[in-house]
């Protein structure tokens, strides 16, 4: 790139500093993106190991390997880590890597803040994990930490839990401010909003959601802190408060949170599908409007998690209808993906395989979500494994697969090397089969009446739980292939071309730069008002 900028630090142009301090002090969006991605990868193994403990305990009826108390700690931390430590950081990492490249910006808008946003995350999770070693044990009240189990009846470590949630929130808020600012202020000339790649769009809206709801979560944990240590009565009927108030505040955050975990995936999947269909995305503008309406609707559906708390009937009906409405924009997206593939010229490289599995299995998860939205039926589904099946379908073959797909899709661009396609496909097929083996039977045990968050269960659930556990171990082991493939790509991969994929032609700025992308991709933004040439 031309037009070298005046700089007071000479390492600015050559690339990264050497040694470990590079990662501590870096302000480079790519470095920070990699940090986020590695952090989330490590947390996937930590949270996944907890899931393995859960599945081992549930392998057979009867007490197996852990005490009920420790089981609850496992479930709680599994949920917290997967949500706040895996999916969210991975998406932020992808945003860091891709957004500046896709919009032609020199870097993120506020680079030092960007570094801070990342580095407080290990701090927050370090604190959370260290509670396992403290007196009273780790948090054991579920990732939704309903009061008063999480206040009056919580172990003393809840104080550290509260502060670590504050820190995670701060990280997300700062990260999102950075992303929004980058998108709104740093686009290359000529890239109007309605010409932005869909991944950028999805993140613009996600970041808005994050800034809107993370502070509400901070408020919720602050109220808990006050109730526990300073004698207030937000969640205590004896003083005029209400435990259900906690749930309202939590889910006001929590529901938008689950869309925070899927909207960026929608962006990723759109890119991958258009690339491997060798066709432009179908219905670009309706995709944008769909994401926006999902985000807006997500603010008024929160109480669908609370159909059984005894809301007035008007509330039940309102939240039922509003939740059902979300199926419309989501359906629009699914149909647009199908139409993009329709009359395309499809090839099935690993990213595409994961993307296809995403569309199929996310649809299954979405449809079970729609069943949950039917309030009177949810009286039966609520807090059973049917819910667990629903959210793992949208989160594992949903959010997690989209991240895996994104890594395979952009890895050659990041590293300059191709991953091993055979290994990638093996990874896909093993994951695809085992993920269904793990989470599909959960629908059955849920309907048959198995509650969530129990370490032991009645005899009639035994068979399916064993299948689930076997599936889970297999799925866990398959992810080792993923790790291996990434490492192999980094160290022994074959060089990749700038365009990487045949179908990537004209599919975004990132494919116009070298693979690996230079340390500073665009020191001045490309001018898109002039006709583009592919390098």
């Amino acid at each position: 790139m031309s037009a070298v900028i005046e700089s007071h630090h000479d390492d600015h142009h050559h690339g990264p500093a050497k040694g470990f301090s590079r990662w501590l002090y870096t302000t480079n969006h790519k470095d920070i993106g990699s940090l986020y991605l590695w952090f989330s990868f490590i947390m996937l193994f930590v949270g996944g190991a907890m899931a393995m403990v859960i599945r081992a305990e549930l392998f057979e009826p009867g007490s197996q390997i852990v005490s009920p108390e420790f089981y609850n700690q496992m479930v709680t931390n599994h949920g917290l880590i997967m949500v706040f430590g895996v999916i969210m950081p991975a998406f932020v990492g992808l945003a860091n890597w891709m957004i500046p490249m896709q919009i032609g910006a020199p870097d993120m808008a506020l680079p030092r803040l960007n570094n801070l946003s990342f580095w407080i995350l290990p701090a927050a999770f370090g604190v959370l994990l260290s509670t396992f070693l403290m007196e009273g044990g780790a948090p054991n009240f579920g990732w939704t930490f309903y009061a008063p189990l999480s206040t009056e009846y919580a172990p003393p470590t809840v104080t550290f839990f509260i502060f670590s949630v504050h820190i995670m929130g701060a990280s997300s808020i700062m990260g999102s401010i950075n992303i929004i600012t980058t998108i709104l202020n740093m686009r290359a000339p000529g890239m109007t909003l309605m010409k932005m790649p869909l991944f950028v769009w999805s993140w613009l809206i996600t970041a808005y959601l994050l800034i809107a709801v993370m502070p509400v979560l901070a408020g919720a944990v602050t109220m808990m802190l006050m109730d526990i240590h300073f004698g207030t009565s937000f969640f205590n009927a004896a003083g005029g408060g209400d435990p259900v108030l906690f749930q309202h505040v939590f889910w006001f955050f929590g529901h938008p949170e689950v869309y925070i975990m899927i909207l960026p995936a929608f962006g990723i999947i759109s890119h991958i599908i258009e690339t491997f269909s060798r066709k432009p995305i179908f219905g670009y503008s309706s995709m944008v409007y769909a994401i926006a309406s999902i985000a807006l609707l997500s603010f008024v559906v929160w109480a669908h998690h609370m159909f059984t708390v005894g809301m007035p009937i008007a509330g039940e009906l309102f939240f039922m209808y509003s939740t059902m409405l979300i199926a419309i924009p989501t359906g629009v997206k699914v149909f647009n993906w199908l139409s993009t593939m329709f009359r395309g010229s499809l090839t099935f490289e690993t990213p595409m395989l994961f993307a296809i599995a995403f569309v199929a299995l996310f649809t299954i998860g979405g449809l079970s979500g729609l069943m949950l939205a039917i309030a009177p039926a949810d009286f039966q589904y609520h807090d059973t494994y049917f819910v667990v099946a629903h959210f793992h379908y949208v989160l594992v073959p949903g959010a997690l697969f989209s991240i895996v797909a994104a890594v395979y899709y952009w890895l050659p661009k990041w590293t300059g090397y191709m991953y091993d396609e055979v290994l990638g496909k093996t990874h896909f097929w093993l994951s695809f089969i085992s993920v269904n083996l793990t989470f599909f039977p959960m629908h059955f045990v849920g309907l048959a009446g198995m509650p969530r968050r129990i370490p032991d269960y009645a005899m009639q659930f035994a068979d399916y739980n064993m299948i689930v556990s076997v599936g889970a171990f297999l799925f866990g082991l398959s992810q080792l292939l993923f790790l291996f493939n990434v490492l192999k790509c980094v160290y022994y991969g074959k060089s990749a071309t700038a365009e990487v994929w045949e179908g990537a032609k004209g599919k975004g700025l990132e494919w116009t730069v070298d693979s690996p992308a230079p340390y500073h991709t665009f020191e001045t933004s490309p001018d898109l008002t002039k006709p583009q040439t592919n390098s």
Partner: protein
Amino acid sequence: MIFRTFLFALPFMSLSVFAGWDDINMSPGATALGQEIFGLHMTIFWICFAIGVAVLGAMAFILFRYRKKEGVEAAKFDDSTFLEFTWTILFALILIGMSIPATITMIRAYDDTEGDINILITGHQWKWQYEYIEDEVSFFSNLSTSLDERNNLAPKGENYLLEVDEHLVIPTGARIRFLITANDVIHSWWVPDFAIKQDAIPGFVNTGWTQVNEPGIFRGQCTELCGQYHGYMPIVVEAVSPEEYKEFIIQKKEAKLQQAALTEKLWTAEELMAMGEGVYQKNCVACHQVNGEGLAPVFPALAGSDIVMNDKARQIEILMEGVQGAAMQSYAEQLTEVEIAAVITYTKRSWGNDVNGNGEIVAPKEILDYKTNKL
């Protein structure tokens, strides 16, 4: 290759839906409401199933038909307002179709007129309390599956984890209204056959109702995470004929009178110990453990506890009042005077706690005195 997978995946999914219906589907319901909700569930399920098959089928077709072929270029189109408009409308119509039966069922489920019989259900960590408001009968219902079964030391019975010492007995044919609340944390009272799942919220009262027409036994569980033994607080409801129900209430009332008489009786240390052990196994081991060692740091050891060994008055107070803000609750209502006296005696004389060697016992009378003094 993709196509083959979906061919393979679809029947796998649908087949398992048809296999062994009972184990894998919702309870068809033992009450009118239960049946109605089951019907609603099936309606919604088939709609979703059909959508799923349509979407996945279309996808499988596209993946197969439009895979890359030599000499075939991809089409270039990238939108169609007509199509998008059509399917948006289509989705909306489907949703309206679903919401109509849902709304009707919802309104029926919320019918909250007074019942013939009102039962106050209170969730405690980790047991249910049932109080027949009109008859002033009240009792607790604890899990009765043995620890050996749970620890795989004995074969597991048919109703493993779903059996309790005291059933909630209701008459057939009557409209029963449940008033549901909790004493400590949130629990949730769920009996699938009645399609009642109501959260029990400390300080608030939720309602639910049922009317069972055939006698039978119905099992359910607590469905809101309520601490370590959340998985161990099942619900068993027994529907009996109105005559048997009357008999049951009379028995309960008599038992209450008998208890009062027992309190007056003079008890020997051995009798108290024998009874105390039973009470301890049932009510206290969950926290203070069989060997009295407790579970540090939350549940204190009773073995070697200063209070247990030397401070009788305080121990009575703890059992009667509970400890504010800790899991230790009041047993004043759950246990009779005799049982409380017995369990205190038991803790004072077990695990080497009897250091003073004076064989101190606590008589039921003392508990009664505590109660009367408080009034």
